[in-house]
């Protein structure tokens, strides 16, 4: 048993054993199988039904992308687990030491507090990767059904959920270290999660800075990863928040340091993180890893858009909650920003819902302006926006090559064996593993 391992290795082992001894961990593991299974089975059925009508002509092919049809809903179950189950596992691992008195013993080792917190974070990350096995089993099943997979987009989805879990772990570690009791930490953690939902709601109503901030909430970030879009700024901001959470956790773990000093250090860390986030938010690099190029215009269009000279200004006369504005953002402007980060988009509306502005002058118009030309349109589709931009720039629309159209991967398959795997075999395997783990040391 004794080995020449260093203190950090011992700490890692201890955290791992504490995780294995935690009921919340086994409960999360038990529940995540059926959760993922329900989402996967439902997605495969719907995908199969849609595939059965042979609707794979150009233009609707995106609907038959496994990324959107299968993996986004399947992995969404992980998002639920990350929001409502993982915090309890993380809080147990951090608060447990404080509650049992183990922290008072371990603090007497002259190890940096950040190393202690890192050991917990590493173990929790490993725990999350294990908890991600059910969606990975879903991928295996999908392949067995004859479905296709595209590794880059699957990697993006998986990475998005790992980052999301990292945010949850960091938040839970920070709240567990700051508060005296696990239940307080749980309330705080869930409070922050609900707070991000409120932020998303405020963004939908008010737009502007709210919208910008909401782009970095876990929900928004995961949604982009699930569509195969990897934004470097979102990754950097997430990593900063994870580092901040772990740093706060490490700071408040040091029981021997006066509270006033810990508060000062926390404020300093918070301000540093805020500055870093502001800087990172200016990064505009992103990658569309989806096979369907769901977040990009076609390659010829991208080449043409890159040739548009001068700063393009777009004035949108649509209210924040107007569905046309949502369409415009998601179908066109988000893609446009990836190619032309220099575009200036300005929204103009007197109200947030726009219901009573419909007859107002200019409402519904979208103005495209270059220094010497201006075009007004009402189209909110990607094609309509592109046509307006080409018109204002005096460019001819490029021809779309047939090979650039994503035809999708229809698959009319039944989710055979999935129910048995996720509803019976997985829970039984988790139960057996928990029992074996319990028996191992006694």
């Amino acid at each position, binding site marked *: *048993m*004794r*080995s020449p*391992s260093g*203190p950090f290795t*011992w*700490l890692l*082992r*201890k955290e791992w*054993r*504490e995780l294995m*001894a*935690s009921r919340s961990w086994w409960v999360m593991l038990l529940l995540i199988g059926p959760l993922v299974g329900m989402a996967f089975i439902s997605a495969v059925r719907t995908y199969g039904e849609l595939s059965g009508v042979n609707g794979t002509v150009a233009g609707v092919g995106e609907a038959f992308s496994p990324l959107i049809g299968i993996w986004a809903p399947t992995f969404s179950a992980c998002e639920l687990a990350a929001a409502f189950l993982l915090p309890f596992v993380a809080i147990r691992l951090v608060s447990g*030491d404080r509650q*049992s*008195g*183990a922290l*008072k*013993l*371990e*603090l*007497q*080792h*002259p190890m940096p507090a950040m190393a202690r917190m890192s050991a917990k974070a590493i173990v929790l990350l490993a725990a999350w990767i294990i908890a991600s096995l059910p969606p990975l089993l879903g991928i295996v099943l999908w392949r067995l059904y004859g479905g296709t997979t595209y590794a880059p987009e699957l990697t993006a989805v998986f990475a998005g959920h790992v980052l999301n879990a990292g945010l949850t772990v960091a938040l839970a570690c920070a709240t567990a270290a700051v508060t005296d009791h696990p239940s307080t930490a749980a309330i705080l953690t869930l409070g922050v999660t609900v707070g991000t939902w409120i932020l998303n709601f405020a963004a939908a109503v008010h737009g502007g800075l709210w919208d910008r901030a909401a782009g970095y909430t876990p929900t928004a970030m995961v949604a982009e990863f699930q569509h195969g879009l990897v934004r470097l700024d979102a990754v950097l901001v997430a990593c900063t928040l994870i580092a901040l959470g772990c740093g706060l956790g490490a700071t408040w773990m*040091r*029981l*021997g*340091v*006066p*509270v006033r000093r810990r508060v000062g250090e926390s404020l300093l860390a918070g301000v540093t993180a805020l500055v870093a986030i502001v800087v990172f938010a200016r990064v505009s690099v992103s990658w569309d890893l989806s096979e369907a190029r769901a977040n990009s215009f076609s390659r010829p269009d991208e080449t043409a858009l890159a040739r548009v000279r001068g700063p393009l200004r777009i004035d949108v006369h649509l209210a924040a909650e107007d569905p046309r504005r949502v369409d415009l953002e998601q179908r066109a402007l988000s893609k446009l920003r990836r190619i032309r980060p220099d575009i200036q988009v300005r929204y103009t509306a007197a109200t947030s819902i726009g219901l009573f502005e419909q007859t107002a002058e200019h409402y519904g118009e979208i103005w495209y302006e270059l220094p010497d030309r201006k075009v007004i349109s009402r189209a909110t589709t990607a094609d309509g926006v592109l046509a307006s931009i080409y018109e204002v720039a005096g460019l001819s629309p490029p021809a779309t090559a047939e090979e650039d159209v994503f035809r999708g991967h229809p698959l009319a398959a039944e989710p055979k064996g999935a129910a048995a795997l996720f509803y019976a075999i997985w829970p039984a395997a988790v139960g057996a593993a928990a029992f074996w783990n319990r028996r191992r*040391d*006694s």
Partner: protein
Amino acid sequence: MIPGLHVHQLHKRYGSIAALADVSLTVREGEVLGLIGPNGAGKTTLFECIAGVLPADSGTVMVKDQPVPGPDRGSHLFFMPDGIAPWASQTVRWALDFTVGFFGGDAARLAGVIERLHIEPLMRRRVGTLSKGERKRVLLAIAMLTPQPLMMADEPFDGLDLRQSREVGTALREHAAAGRTVFLSIHQIADAERVCDRFVLLSAGRVCGEGTLDELTALARARLAVDDAGRRQGADPNGLEEVVLALT
């Protein structure tokens, strides 16, 4: 003896309550020092402040005349708190292995400590399932396996029956004789008198006396001699119990 650790003017307040006021004391190398005081005297607070797991408002802890900040004290001393159940889901065997591995203790001492504290039958039990007395012996084993020159234990006899108290007392004396300085917080006077070389008396957060039993007896006599009416109040203190009553 060379001073091993010196506590200088330690202060600690909890809001309006002064838990420790101007506490100074010396722990000499190789001795067994007992911190004696009634419940609520501030013994645990003092130990936690010395160990650096609770911030003191002011004061210094010096080792060999050099101030040692709280986070660095783990290199010089190990403090075992009272009433804890660390790593409750783990077996006693693993907790002891972890102590040796994590703190860099001497693995060769493991078998001896297990035997001396009679914890072999507990090795496969989980720490959280132990009775108070069993857990106390395991906690002492953990403390005795740590490598720091000074070992501090809060209420090492609490929860132990008479026989166990005597055995643990003997084990602690042997531990000190093997070259380790031991500082114990004790409220059972008889146990303290049997185990400790010197004593620090603490009452209401203040040190009321420090020294051997003879030195404290002399101090108690002197206090009695200077009573306001010029008369001696009561009989001469006899034994640590009466000394403590006289001085605290």
